[in-house]
């Protein structure tokens, strides 16, 4: 099925887990938002792996014959949308962190403890 067997799937799972681990142990909100992006990159790997075909080329027919083997263009569109979504969310969260730093001079999640119980 794949060039590398199950390796890409394992990589996707590993990225998700390592992102969550980073979120759990994070002491810095910029680092935490980065970890979220790492966790998200697992979805890129998984999507692209799902659409991979052995010997396939890019799904652009302008310079190849229409009968040539190409990888699945749908997952590439999905991955692209996913990147857009991820960029939006990351930018928004980083903007919140900047506000936090500017106005309250902290980016340590453990110093935000007004909401408990």
């Amino acid at each position, binding site marked *: 099925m794949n060039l590398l067997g199950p390796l890409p799937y394992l990589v996707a799972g590993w990225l998700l887990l390592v992102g*969550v681990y980073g979120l759990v142990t994070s002491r810095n909100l910029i680092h935490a938002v980065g970890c979220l992006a790492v*966790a998200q990159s697992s979805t890129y790997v998984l*999507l692209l792996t799902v659409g991979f075909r052995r010997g396939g080329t890019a799904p652009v027919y302008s310079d190849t014959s229409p009968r040539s083997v190409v990888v699945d263009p749908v997952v590439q569109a999905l991955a692209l949308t996913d990147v857009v979504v991820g960029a939006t969310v990351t930018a928004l*969260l980083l903007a919140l962190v900047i*506000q936090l730093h500017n106005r309250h001079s902290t980016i340590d999640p453990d110093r935000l403890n*007004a909401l*408990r119980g």
Partner: protein
Amino acid sequence: MTAAQLLPLAVAVPLLGAVTLALAGRLLPRLGCDILATAWASADVVLLAGLWHCSSRGTQVNWVGAWKPTGGEGVGIVLVGDRIGIGLALLITVLILAALLYAWRFFEEPPAGHRGTFPALILLFEAGMCGFALTGDLFNAFVFFELMGAVAYALTGYHVEDPRPLQGALTFGVINSLAAYCSLMGIALLYARTGELGMAQIGRHLAGHSADALIVVAFVLVLTGLLVKGAMAPFHFWLPDAHAVAPTPVCMLLSGVMVELGVYGAARVYWTLFSGPGGIPAHAMRDVLTSTGVVTALLGAVMCWQQRHIKRMLAFSTISHVGLFLVGISLLSPQGVTGTALYVAGHAGVKAALFALTGVLLDQHGSVDEHSLYGRARELRRSAGIMFVLGALALAGLPPFGTGLGKALTEHAAGEFLGWLPAVFVLTSAITGATVLRTAARVFTGAGGRPDATAGAQTRGDHEEPEVRDPGRPVPAPMLVVPALLLAGSLVLGLLPGPVTALTRAGQLFTSRAAYLAAVGLAPTNQPAMPVVTPVAPPVVWTGEGIALGLLSTILAAALAATALWGPALQGAAAHRLRGLAAAVTQRLVAPLRSLHSGRLGDNAVWLATGVAVLLVAFSTLVQP
């Protein structure tokens, strides 16, 4: 032009409105922006009301750009408006209109050049939510899910002057997005198995395989995102933090309808994708989700009772009610869906009204702390006070409010599945109603003893950043008219037979997978194109049992509130012993539970991972390939 062709407008009109307002905000004065936003939101309500009317003729389906599947396969995107989906979108537009009207005089003058920001964000939020309610495509559901999520994070952290909204918004954003990425992984796995993204198409392709580990993992991952949005234990930790700090009009939307969309999504995904052969067996779905719902309902009620920060209290009450909604849909019966739909609509009106009234308190007294507000809002008791009490009673399920009818119908369906489930409904709605009743009595009349202002609570509600810096002004009219209209709407839902009749049929359509497949043009070849919906028995409106249980939970709520108010002052050995017992229970059981709600981002992520693991184990055990 048919109704189906108008379906994309439900998403496009608010999107266009958001752009228009963002641009017009640079030119128009504040009044102009408010009028434009209200007019736009009203147009959306009219549009959805029209679609709701047309949906009585059947499910409206629109393949956007006429990219219909050929031979059952295709990459087109479909919008499907059945009565439940369109009804939910109608509820969304009504609440958006209410929130925008409420916000007319709510905020202080926004900075010049950015007057349209807030209404533009609200309309963008509307587009995301309506899209999520109407989409028939799993990947689009993810995109709309993230759209409404991203707007909601921004709206939650709207008051950047205070660290608490920023903390709430960051936790909300990180946890919800992480969960959404889990959902996306599930969607990718389903695409890998079926090569389809449309909900109906995936469901049809799954029938060719047995339910193996891949399907279970994909189902759990997709469900994770929806249950996190629906704030199910142990995924609920973000909700009270976000709802306690968001601006009041945003709280109305978050609690009133956004959280409920998670439950709707779970039901939709189950029925269209996984209810057929090769999916998840009904007993697994029913067992796992009913237990989750019951645990969430009880946990939300206990935590609600403990709060003194009124918005946080209402947030926990939402958690408790959403738990009940999950129980309702996980019964997997048309009656359960009908009851839950009505319950959601009634609850949306009541909860939005309660948040709106809390906003009045914040506006007038700069506090949402039950203890420090003790007796301070006496001058509002004839207006806001009465509505607060009515809201509390409606929350407890007093007939003939819509919440009462929804609760009665759901309870009845639940009782047919498990005899003790109605007790959970009565108990949890009584506790949440009692908490709000207790607050109303303390704040508006100064009933009971003066609570110890320093005791207990970890999240207080005084020293709130006031949303308007003009404390002496009279309460603006929209801030009292909007909650009154919302409460009246909830009452009408319970009184008129129309909505129940419509939702009874809608519930049958929602739980019929064949009807959904036929509507999108993918009817199984060996079955008739139009599924025969079994003749509907005349809808049950109010039954003696429903009224009795509704009254029971209302009386229980009143009794609990009275105990909380006057119990501490009671004399006598028995009262003394009972107080000791209550203190011991609080110390041993409730205090550890409260300390779990640490508000730490890391702890939230741990709970998310734990929840996914538990769901995986539960479903893997219950689904035998």
